[in-house]
Structure formats: structure tokens, C-alpha cells
């Protein structure tokens, strides 16, 4: 891995990390300043957040320094479509569970999308495998562990 970002002046990823750390620090500090409960003895619940915020500020500023020196390690180029497939599957999962679509369908989609992202070209077959997997897991949890995973119309057929 060669590091040729130095020629551009500042290392962009390091700058971004620095800015993000400062934002987190501000969030933590602001939240602490809004708290109402104080402690009579010793230090209250706000002390630690302020310490963490100060630490994050120092780390953020250090990243700015690093950005102008060696920078962060230069990563290889990412396979973005692959990432999008997996992320898409996971976002569908969250939506499906949130909107009451049920566990089994969500799992089928996650399985199929992830396998697709990893390079398999058989979306329908993978969805079927994922469906079976989801069904088995749901039944094992429901019958053996008496733990009901999020249910939609489909799951209610089995309960």
C-alpha cells in the first residue's frame, strides 16, 4: 500500500474523522449541559460526559494533525454495488420488522441480498433458502425456547 495522499496537502479521511469526532464531542457536551439532576456528594452524572467530550475534542484535533502528516492508511477501492446490496437487505429488514411484516420474510430478503452482494447470481433460489431458514428459526424459537420473534401475517399461521 503506497501512501500518495500527502501530495494533495491534507488527508481527507483523517479530516472527516476529525470533524465527526468534534461533532460527537459537541453532542455529548451539549447533552450534559442540558441535564437537570445533580448529585449532592462527589461528582454528578455530568462529569463523565464532559471528560469524554474533552477526550473526543483532543482526539479530533489530533486527527487534523495526522491529516497533514502521514494521514490514515489508504484503503483499496471498495466494491460499492456489493455494499449496496447488503445495506439494502438490512434496511428492508428494519422496515419489515418495524412495519409488522414479520421475521420470516425479512430473513429471506436479508439472506438473498447478502448472498447477491457476495457474488452469487441466484436471487430466487437464495430467497427460497432464506425463507426456509427463517421459518425453521422462527419455529425453533417459538416451540423450543418459547420466545416469539417478531410476527407478521405469515408467522401467525404457525402460532
Amino acid at each position, binding site marked *: 500500500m503506497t501512501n500518495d495522499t500527502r501530495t494533495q496537502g491534507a488527508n481527507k479521511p483523517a479530516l472527516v474523522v476529525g470533524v465527526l469526532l468534534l461533532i460527537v464531542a459537541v453532542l455529548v457536551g451539549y*447533552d450534559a449541559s442540558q441535564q437537570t439532576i445533580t448529585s449532592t456528594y462527589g461528582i454528578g452524572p455530568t462529569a463523565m460526559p464532559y471528560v469524554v467530550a474533552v477526550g473526543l475534542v483532543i482526539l479530533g484535533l489530533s486527527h487534523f494533525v495526522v491529516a497533514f502528516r502521514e494521514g490514515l492508511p489508504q484503503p483499496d477501492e471498495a*466494491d460499492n454495488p456489493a455494499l449496496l446490496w447488503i*445495506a439494502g437487505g*438490512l434496511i428492508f429488514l428494519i422496515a419489515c420488522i418495524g412495519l409488522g411484516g414479520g421475521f420470516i420474510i425479512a430473513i429471506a430478503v*436479508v439472506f438473498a441480498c*447478502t448472498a447477491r452482494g457476495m457474488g452469487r447470481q441466484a436471487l430466487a433460489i437464495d430467497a427460497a*433458502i432464506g425463507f426456509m431458514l427463517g421459518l425453521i428459526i422462527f419455529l425453533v424459537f417459538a416451540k423450543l425456547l418459547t420466545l416469539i420473534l417478531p410476527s407478521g401475517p405469515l408467522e401467525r399461521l404457525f402460532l
Partner: protein
Amino acid sequence: MDTLLSLLNGFGVAFEPAKLMFCLIGVFLGTAVGVLPGIGPALTVALLLPVTFKLDPAGSLIMFAGIYYGGMYGGSTTAILLNAPGESASLATALEGSKMAKAGRGGPALATSAIGSFVAGLIATIGLAFLAPLLVELAVKFGPWDYFALMIVAFVTVSATFGDSPLRGLTSLFLGIALGLIGIDKLTGQARLTFGVPELLNGVEVTTLAVGLFAVGEAFYVASKRARDPEEIIPIKGSLWMTKEDWKRSWAPWLRGTAFGFPIGALPAGGAEVPTFLSYSTERKLCKYPEEFGKGAIEGVAGPEAANNASAAGTLVPLLTLGLPTSATAAIMLAGFQQYGLNPGPLLFAEKPDLVWGLIASLFVANVMLVILNLPLIGLWVRLLAIPQPWLYAGILVFATMGTLAVNSSPVELGMLFAFGFLGYLMRRYDYPVAPMVVGLILGPMAEAQLRRALQISLGDPMILLENPISATLLGIAFIALVAPFVMKGLNRFKAAED
């Protein structure tokens, strides 16, 4: 001889048929999951935590012990046969192990790693059994200030001393501590950083963070660079068994590896990387056939594997006696304890001796089971390695989702899993270590509680931390460990300028 008596009692617990069964299931599951490429022991434990959810505490902790040791063993199989170490502690094993496998000596490599792990595990567990009560006696005298100082040492050593860049390690740690602030403050009831989201009041689950960072993050990472380096299984050719020569060359490295691994693991210094690499370089120096190193020397597998396992048992010493996790795996184990309202520490030894000693005895049992189970089952584990990568990672994400939903079935929890996964991917991409973040999340609130307790006792005087000899010494060690890498770097630069 109290220790022996307690240990015998522990064996009484561990030999109950139900407990033996749990241990066997744990060893089997741990190996099966640990063998999958890209899954280290930390992730194995995190993924399987929900499985133990409904068992009684003793049974599930015993299963845990099995999972832990099984996961370690599975990881070294992957390192040898795939040259894909699941964690940095098996890097050294992969160096020589994969070369041996390529040379058709995969069988003896796996055997020396299994038997070496067994020998190391056995010795280190004996060490644990005898060291733990001594440390408990010491720990009883610890005040909150001492605990706080100890945690600071753990923070520093986990994040700053090891890894490529102390800055990136500390960043990871501080993000973990910041996550630890989320939720209701235990001492006052003040809600912190919840932004009005009720799901956040209980704080961030350690398992959600760990599974997100390790499993989902790894899946993203592998997908992002899929096209570049396809993994290849090296088939096992020839005999599985070690020759007389192999035995002769293995036994001393096993013992030396154990001697490195256990003490370093037992210190709150975090990680098995140091002992494994120490062992590797020592074996390289002592070996009668130094020309074989780099081409598959059996000593280079035997030593680091023993060191790795011994340090795994070593990390249980601070975990059980002080409640101090010094590795990501230990942090997740601690989360497992807390799931049952158990707080490891000196009190646990006094209140639940059956449980603690049953657990320690189960480590012996798990060790024996591993070696009996794994030598004949190597063929099965190799077949697990052959699962096509797309299905493997799809399956991992399914299990990650399942585990998260079983603990807390809300879309917010899944959203966090996804967010942590993406964060884990970015951290991997830019070479930030993820383990300090998990340790920060679990140790941060503990350190805060101890500090506040200390300051309540001293009526707000922070000098109490420096007036007590133990805490003062520990803080001094932490300071040196924190500053040393930066100073060394400065010295190096100075040297470079001089040249």
C-alpha cells in the same frame, strides 16, 4: 488446600449429566462457529450468547466456557487450512500452519495445535484455579479508587499500547466510552444522550455492538474487497497423526508457549497477540532447524497455539476475580454474566462458589472434550470450511439478526446493529481496531461508577486516587503505558533525523 477442596466441589457440579451435556453442546457449537472463516472467538461468543438465554445461570456459563474454548480451537483450524486468521492472536499460527498445510502436513499441524491447546489449556486452567483465590484475597482489600485505577490501566493497554496506532486505538476506545454513557445514570436516574428515544434508556447492548462491529462489519468488509483475494482451502493430505519426530519437536514449544501466554493473559494488558508473537520469535531462535521457519516449521504452530490458549485462560483471571475484561471476548463473556445479574469479582467467589468453581472445573472438562472430539472430527470441520462464501456471510447476517431480535425485538435495536455494522466496516477499512470500542462500552460505565463512589467517600477530593499506594501505582503504570508509544515514536523520528 481450600483451593483443591473448592475445585473438587466444582468438579461435582461440572460432572452432573446435564452440565456435561451443556459443556459438550458448547464445545461443539463453539468449534462449528469458530471454524467458519472470518469468525473469531469474540464473535463466536457474541453470536451464541442468545442461545444460552433461557438456560439457568450455571448451565449457560458452563456452555459458555465450552463455546469459548471451542471457538479458540476452531479459529486455529481456519488459520491453518485457509491461511485466514479470524483474529490477530492466530496470525502467528497462520504463518507456519498454512505453510505446513501446503506442504501436505496439515494433519500434524492441526494435531499439534489441538494437543498444544490442550496442554496449555490444562496448565493455564490449573494456574487460574490457584491464582484466582489469591487474587480474590487481594481484591477484597481494593477500594473503589483501586478499581478505577485498574480500569484505567485496562483502557490504556487495550487501546494504546498494541495495534499500529495509539491514536486510532484511543479513538475507538473513546467512542465506546461515549456509547456507554447512553441511557439512565445508575446513581441518579438522569437520562443521558437518549434524545427522547425510549429504547435508548436501557443503554446500548454489548452484544448488539459486538455483533454489529464484528459480524455485520466483517460482512461489509469482505464484500467490499471480494473480487481481489479469493480464499482457498488447502486440502489435508497424508496422515493426520504426528510422527515421533513431531512430538519431540512440539512438547517444549507447548510448554514455553504456555509460560508466555498465561502470565501475559492474566495481566490486565489485553490481547493474546503479544504472547503469540513472543512465542513465535522465541521458537524461531531456539529451533534446531531455523531454515524451516517460513516454510512450515512445526514449532511455529505448537508454540503460538499454546500461547494463545494459555492467554485465553489467563484473561479469565482478571475477569472472574476483579470483573475486569481485558479482551473483546472477555467483555462479551462479562455481558453474559450480567445477563443473569451476576457480577464477577471477589463477592461472586464468596456468594456463589458452586457457580465459579463449577465454571473453572468445566474448563478442564471442555479441554478434554475438545481434544477427544476434534481429532476425529477434523474431517467434519474441514467440510464446514467449504461452505460457499455468499451463503456463509448471508447465514452470519441471519444469525446476527436473530440474536439481536431474540434479546430485544425492536426496529431501533436493528437500526443500531446496522449502524454499528457500517461503522465497523469503516473502522476496518481505515485500520481502526474495533475491540477497544467493545471494551470501552462495557468498562466505561464501570469505571465511572467506581470513580464516583471513590469521590463520594472522599467528599469530592480527587487526591484520594493518588494518596492510596495501589491506585497511585496503577495510575502511574497507565500513564507510562499511554505516553511510551508517543515518546518512542518521537525518539525514532529523532534517530531518523540524526542519520
